């Protein structure tokens, strides 16, 4: 008996006695993946699902939109939308390196870069070959160039890292060095990409790569004092010559719930309430919640709750001709009706969106709940539920190619050549055609504002046209132009001691 027990104890005690390997059930060990074409594609596809964060109000879209005159989120009565001051600091250009949206923006861009590096690394480590491999590698490199282009635009001098195997903390490069890198990557890889966005919808294509190039050249004078107007024209022509894009007859076709058939959208972030809803709070396309009054959901039959926040400034709204310009339907203004056509009531009074806004931030005189006109360019889907719209977000449109080319021509002194380009875009709005004399830089700036409201173009435009630091509604003129670059986020500075802060900011 005794012996049996002792033996049992000793057998038990040395049975698998020191094996501490973990058994994994619900995820995949990294070294067991990347064995088939499909697995590579599923890994590479993350670049595109990462983009779903772009339109979030705490991400890059919020940062580059609220910091312009086209959007603001004032402190509203009942203590709403104070949010620790992030919205007023963006709008009034009083942001500091601690600003959360600016950090989120930085993080979005550099996480995108890092995941591109990792995808490219996995491709380089595998001998597996499949037909679309080279094309996919080129796509990832172009997407990485786009992240770098945005980071350079917003932050100037930024860290450069292109090799996933290099685990050292990256060095900061000048904006010019990044410019050269991005330019080269785009030129080298564009040829491997599809000609048409409809061919590779929602992914990097030739027109997308050339559009990025056009935007770089267009801003080159502002950034480096080195005008590249002809290069801008050439890059736009590269898109035009492909013949794969055209303007939609109806401006709003580009923003419908089912806008994936748009012939005008060059690059869209593909949202779908079922397949591509971001998966979490920070990656949903939720313009409806951001801007609509609590009761306005009943106008559109939206089931989600809306938050009554973002609106546009009075002066920006007033650049629209409400009677003639069909693009003024970008905005919701005046007394509101519910879906049945009856007045939309809140506390017994009709909701009436007014352009006037009491203040950006004043507890004694906050913005009223109904102040500020609201955004309705993207079609609001009846029955929308799940906090993510299914409309695809248009990052770049063909209208922009025509207008960038037109602007570059005007800046070259060739206004006559620019007239048909602007009028091609303008013809669908109901407004009269431009003459060459009317195409002043101020008019081009205003027209771009009307055409691209809330499309992420305004910040670049304001800086390029010298309007960024000027006084506007709820913001005085700035003493210098340091805010034309955002500060390097404080958290990024702590993480990477190689980084030098942009001038005008203290950590």
């Amino acid at each position, binding site marked *: 008996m005794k012996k049996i027990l002792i033996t049992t104890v000793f057998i038990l005690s040395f049975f698998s006695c020191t094996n501490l390997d973990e058994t994994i059930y619900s995820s995949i060990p990294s070294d067991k993946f990347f064995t088939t074409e499909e697995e590579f594609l599923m890994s590479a596809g993350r670049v595109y699902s990462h983009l779903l964060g772009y339109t979030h109000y705490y991400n890059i879209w919020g940062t580059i939109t609220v910091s312009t005159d086209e959007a603001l989120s004032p402190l509203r009565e009942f203590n709403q939308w*104070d949010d620790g001051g992030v919205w007023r600091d963006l709008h009034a250009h009083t942001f500091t390196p601690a600003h959360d949206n600016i950090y989120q923006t930085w993080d979005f861009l550099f996480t995108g870069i890092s995941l591109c590096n990792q995808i490219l690394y996995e491709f380089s480590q595998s001998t597996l070959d499949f037909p679309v491999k080279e094309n996919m590698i080129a796509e990832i490199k172009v997407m990485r160039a786009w992240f770098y282009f945005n980071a350079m635009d917003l932050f100037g001098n930024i860290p450069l890292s292109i090799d996933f195997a290099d685990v050292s903390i990256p060095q900061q490069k000048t904006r010019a060095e990044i410019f050269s890198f991005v330019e080269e990557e785009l030129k080298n890889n564009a040829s491997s990409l599809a000609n048409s966005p409809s061919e590779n919808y929602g992914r990097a294509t030739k027109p997308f790569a050339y559009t990025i190039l056009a935007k770089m050249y267009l801003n080159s004078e502002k950034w480096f004092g080195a005008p590249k107007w002809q290069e801008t024209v050439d890059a736009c022509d590269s898109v035009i010559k492909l013949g794969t894009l055209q303007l939609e007859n109806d401006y709003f076709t580009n923003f419908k719930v089912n806008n994936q058939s748009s012939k005008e959208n060059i690059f869209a972030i593909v949202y779908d309430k*079922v397949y591509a809803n971001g998966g979490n709070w920070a990656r949903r396309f939720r313009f409806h919640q951001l801007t609509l009054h609590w009761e306005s959901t009943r106008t559109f039959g939206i089931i989600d709750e809306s938050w009554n926040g973002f609106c546009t400034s009075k002066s920006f709204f007033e650049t629209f001709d409400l009677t003639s310009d069909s693009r003024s339907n970008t905005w919701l203004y005046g007394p509101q009706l519910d879906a049945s056509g009856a007045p939309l009531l809140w506390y017994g009074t009709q909701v009436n969106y007014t352009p006037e806004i009491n203040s950006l931030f004043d507890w004694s005189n906050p913005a009223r709940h109904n102040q500020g006109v609201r955004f309705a360019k993207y079609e609001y889907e009846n029955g929308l539920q799940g906090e993510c719209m299914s409309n695809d977000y248009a990052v770049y449109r063909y209208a922009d190619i025509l207008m960038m080319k037109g602007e570059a021509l005007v800046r070259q002194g060739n206004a006559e050549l620019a007239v048909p380009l602007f009028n091609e875009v303008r013809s669908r709005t109901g407004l009269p055609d431009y003459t060459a004399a009317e195409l002043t830089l101020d008019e081009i700036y205003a027209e771009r504002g009307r055409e691209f409201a809330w499309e992420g173009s305004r910040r670049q435009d304001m800086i390029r046209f010298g309007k960024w630091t000027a006084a506007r509604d709820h913001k005085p003129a700035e003493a210098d132009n340091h805010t034309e670059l955002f500060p390097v986020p404080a*958290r990024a500075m702590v993480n990477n001691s190689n980084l030098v802060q942009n001038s005008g900011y203290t950590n």
Partner: protein
Amino acid sequence: MKIHVKRKFAVILFTAIMLAGSVYAGYAQQKRTVSGKVTETATNTPLSGTTVNVKGANSAVTTDADGNFSITAASGDVLVFYFMGYVTQEIEISNQSHIEVFMVEDISELDELIVIGYGTTTKKEVTGSVSSITSDDFKSGNITDPVQLLQGQIAGLNIIRPDGGDPNGSFQIQLRGITTMSGGASPLIVIDGVVGGDLSSLSSSEIQTIDVLRDGSAAAIYGTRATNGVILVTTKKAVPGTSRLEFSSYIAYQTVDKKPDMLTADEFRAALARYGMSNSADHGASTDWFDQVTQSPLTQNYELSSSGGARSLSYRAGISWTNDRGLVKKSSKESLRTRINVSQLLVNDRLRLDYNVTYSTSKSVYADTYILRQAMFHNPTEPIYADENTPAQYGNYYYVGAMEYYNPVAMLEQFDDSGKRKQFTGSINASLSIIDGFKIHTLVSFTETGESYGHYYGKYNPVYIGNDGRAETYNNHGKSKSIEPYLDYSALFNDHRIQAIFGYSYSEQWNESYSAMNYKFDSDMFSFYNLGAGAAIKDGLATMSSSKSSSKLISFFGRVMYNYKEKYLLSASLRHEGSSRFGKNHKWGLFPGLSIGWRLSKEAFMENVKWVNDIKLRAGFGVTGNQEIGNYQSLAILRKGASNFYYNGNWMSTYEPGRNPNFDLKWEKKQEFNIGFDAGIFDNRLNVNFDFYNRRTTDLLYTYSVPVPPNLYNRKFANVGIIDNKGVELRISGIPYTSKNFRWNVTGTISHNTNKLVSFSNADYAMDALDLGYFGDDLKIYTMRIEEGWSLGNFYGPKFLGFDDSGGAKYEDLDGVEGISEADYQIIGNAYPDFIFSLQNTFTYKNFDFSFLIRGSIGNDVLNQTRVYYEGPAYLGTKNILKSSLDSDYTGGAYYSSRFVEDGSFLKLDNITIGYNVSLKSEYISKLRIYITGQNLLTVTGYRGIDPEISLSGLQPGIDWYDFYPRTKTFVAGIKITF
């Protein structure tokens, strides 16, 4: 009663010791046989297993089941009667051949057994910092979780119930400060040797003793799980040779202690006028929303237990049923807890088998604290139910559109929120005496836990209007197995006593969970019991998920305890332990513990100091770890991405790395030094225990912000920081007065702890400051901060200086730049108390007893979130505000400052009980006790919120969040009958 279970162990053990340790003394005398009977005085029952030997001789016998013995002795010999936990008796033999011996329990606390993990010792011999309470000390009342029994009983152990009287609320236990930034912070629970048990599955009446290993030297034997201390629970076992039935029951009634002080409807109307606001916010009704969602509940409890059997086979079985109803309407917890223990002696009493089986189930209906917040700020002039202007989609409920503003009655009525939980634990503990002094133990245990939760939001639930009914379920199935064989050696060589263990431990845990959500139901009738009936699944909008994980923990351990003449004491232990959770470079760790003791009172020079009965100095050092970090944290894994991507006309899955892998991940390591003393003076009527400790936790785990690239994500889980805690603990217990009919016992504890975050940066990971205590709604601000060199728990913000003449708030401007910015922020309070204390008084007069327990805390600051938001008119109109808003002319918005950081010192009358033991002449009923108890009847505090005793665990302690459960007073009446 002492711990009967241990008797059998003790008999075998000490018989062996006596045999080994006795010195043969063979002087010639006329030998004869002396027989007799040993009886336990208190119960007048035979005491089997008592060791009887002739003093100075090497022979010994033990009493049989009827307490009888016979031994060979001569006249003039002294017979020694020994039984663990009883006063050892020495009786000189004269001419008699039959003697009756009555054993009396040893009244000295010093001989009480202390459970120390893989064995026991006595209070006088223990060298670590260990506290115990026995069932005699247990307070009565509505005890929903045995943890409650420890509240206010043990110095340095702070137990808080952050959800007040919520029947489904849990307790937070913190021992000697905070030692982790992100790992688990609760002590390790060991029930009858089974590690990692769940106390709530056990009825408090099934517990015999609870021992708490407080310092590192005592806890080190439990290695990577012991940093937060170890709570060892020993359940009641059968008393052989008796047949006993116990029945007990109580009912409890709860009322609201304090509710948020918001404006009534009439005050609301007056406030609208005062602030010049439109009376469109006046909806004409008068509703007390808090009253609408609360009730005055009645709780019932019934328990039954039987025990008995022969010496060689005995059992105890117990069953208890409680239906605990909560203050919030619908909330309740119904629990059924059963336990069976069987003990068997075999092979000439050398083999002992103990089977323990517990099975518990509970069914809960949860209280949603979000409903209470909505009720708190809801406009009191709104009616509850719809009028002619309410849009039809809101059902029968009055509706006003505003962001995150919902009718509380609709939320409550249109919501099913319930859960079921069951737990089975089975264990078998076999011990075999091989040769004298040597024993082999093997403990095999198996635990299985099942949980299922369901939510159903009805069609008119205002939070999910338009969902047409929304059902969610979550199921979880946990399983764990362990085997712990160990060898135990015990011997007494003259004055040298040695106890040693050596063992191996293997345990493995598995967890599987499943959840699903669907909406668009045709009928509310299904609740969450017909998940497939919702239409959202056809639209691709239902969700489903499942997962499985497992972990392993393996260790080798040993301990040697040595003492010389019970005067010089030493204990040394070592555990070599590996956890699957850690990085491949750091799977294994070494956890030593060493403690020494010196019983001064045993020294010759103390012999004349008659008023000192016992005094012992202790010192110890130990290393423990914390492995509560979740599975797979160190690995490079890929997970399925939440969203697909559009690829050539199809939606394709995405796969992404789960995290930045960290192959260096390891346990947090705590090193602790402890010194203290235990003293018994004035005939042991006054006992003092004192401890000083200094503990340092290194390699603190935290999620660090890291640069991207080269990392994939901006966060990485890494071992970096250092936290120090040091403090003192004092416990004094005494009997100030005792007489034939009256006895007064008093016990007081007081403890003090300070902590410091020494660092949270190193060469690889950097952090400037850690901002915590985030207030999301509308404000989006952090209210707390940690920096290197600071204490944890600091509130950080602008310092409020008062109001100016126009009602504007003034703040201290530190940077001289106009306006208050982050540069003007400073430390404006600290959440941790300077002292926590308790005082327990028990009076017995004849059959009456009366006791009360006071608990308190001094110097803890509390941030009152409700005041930050609702003390001021900013929300008035859509929402209600606090009455205190009207005390000032402040008209600004909600803004965080020291104005809302309040002194949370408090004194609570935790428990007050009056009991009566009825004297019965019945031959059927041996004991009958009736009692009434009041719990939480009185709180003395200057704090303006509901209750200053709030959560102190985690890195953001001391915030009184506005999602709250109301505090309750509880009145209990109970009865206990022993047959």
